[in-house]
């Protein structure tokens, strides 16, 4: 298991006192498996989805995320689901959003937790069953002076 940043920075300002008991973390393979399960055998094409997140994350406890999909959101052509996945948190799933033509725009904003620097993947399923995706790479930094 890749050591987390918290463990690596152990020599510094009070950080040596932290013992983080980490459960088995999700891995890139675990994330791929979760994405494959969501995809249900259909191919995924990169494109049409946008993930708006800060590259440098100030605190992994609360990371703003905006996901949007280029879609007319008509009855005939709209996003039905957007699924978010991560690589290194204990679980690969983050959330699943269910939309429809009444959304007007395929756009969701939320805040997520990131336990470590990692890749986030967003996959959108369209009414016609096609799947589209994008990914974002994030660096999670640490605050100083925390609770022991």
């Amino acid at each position, binding site marked *: 298991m890749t050591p987390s940043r918290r463990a690596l920075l152990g020599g510094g*300002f009070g950080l040596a006192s932290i013992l983080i008991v980490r459960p088995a973390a999700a891995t890139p393979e675990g994330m791929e498996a979760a994405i494959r399960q969501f995809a249900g055998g259909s191919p995924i094409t990169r494109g049409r989805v946008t993930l708006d997140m800060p590259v440098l994350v100030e605190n992994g406890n609360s990371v703003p995320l905006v996901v949007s999909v280029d879609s007319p959101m008509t009855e005939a052509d709209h996003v039905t689901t957007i699924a978010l996945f991560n690589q290194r948190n204990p679980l690969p799933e983050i959330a699943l959003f269910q939309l429809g033509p009444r959304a007007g725009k395929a756009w969701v904003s939320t805040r997520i937790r990131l336990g470590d620097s990692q890749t986030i993947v967003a996959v959108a399923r369209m009414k016609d069953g096609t799947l589209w995706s994008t990914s974002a790479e994030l660096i999670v930094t640490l605050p*100083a002076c925390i609770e022991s």
Partner: protein
Amino acid sequence: MSARRLLTAGIAAALALGLAAVLAETIPLAERRSGFDFMSRETQAMQRDDMSNPGMLSVLEGAELWRTRIGKAGKSCADCHGDAAVTMAGVAARYPGFDAAQATAIDLAGRIEQCRTTRQDAPPLAREGRDALALAAFVAHQSRGMPITAGDDPRLAATLDTGRALYGRRIGQLNLSCANCHDDNWGQKLGSAPIPQAHPTGYPIYRLEWQSLGSLQRRMRNCMIGVRAESYAYGAPEFTALELFLMSRAGGMSMETPGVRP
């Protein structure tokens, strides 16, 4: 020790304290910057938007507690203090204050507690408990946008001196004082995080690291633990003295409660 040595030691100590005093107040008003300015754009946006700021949920809670009748007296805060937007405006900005009854400095949480126990005849709230923080957040929120005026009361002069001395005193296994980071090295990075100037403009804050609301005392505990010192207990007079000094040092800056901080 001879009298002469004692005198020399006394002068040296006074000089050291005096020097610490000079060093501890060296951020001129024009250069005072809130912790807000050292945060990422995203965290700033979280604080700015009342719909996005989790601290506002606590302010809402506090507003309801303000109206709730409790205790043997069956009174709410509102029964005596009416509309908080009017009666509490500017109050948090001038705390810690002087409690005439006990002839000592008192912080806002202490004052709220005093009202509860003596005037509402209700059991005390745990410091750092959810209700205490929600009430403090609600009251302090009524001073949002107003300038900090704490520290001017002449009856608090001795407490201010104590706070100043504590601020300049090296502590812990890392042997660092508040001044070492927040006066001498603000703006630099500690690990990957920028060091702010330590102005208590937004308390109680929603700290992302805590994933909840917390007081200045909790934040100072984090610092003391950070330098591997034994922290003062919640409600300790040292904390009140430190808060008085920090508020005085932040004089003229705007209150932001509820602040969001990483």
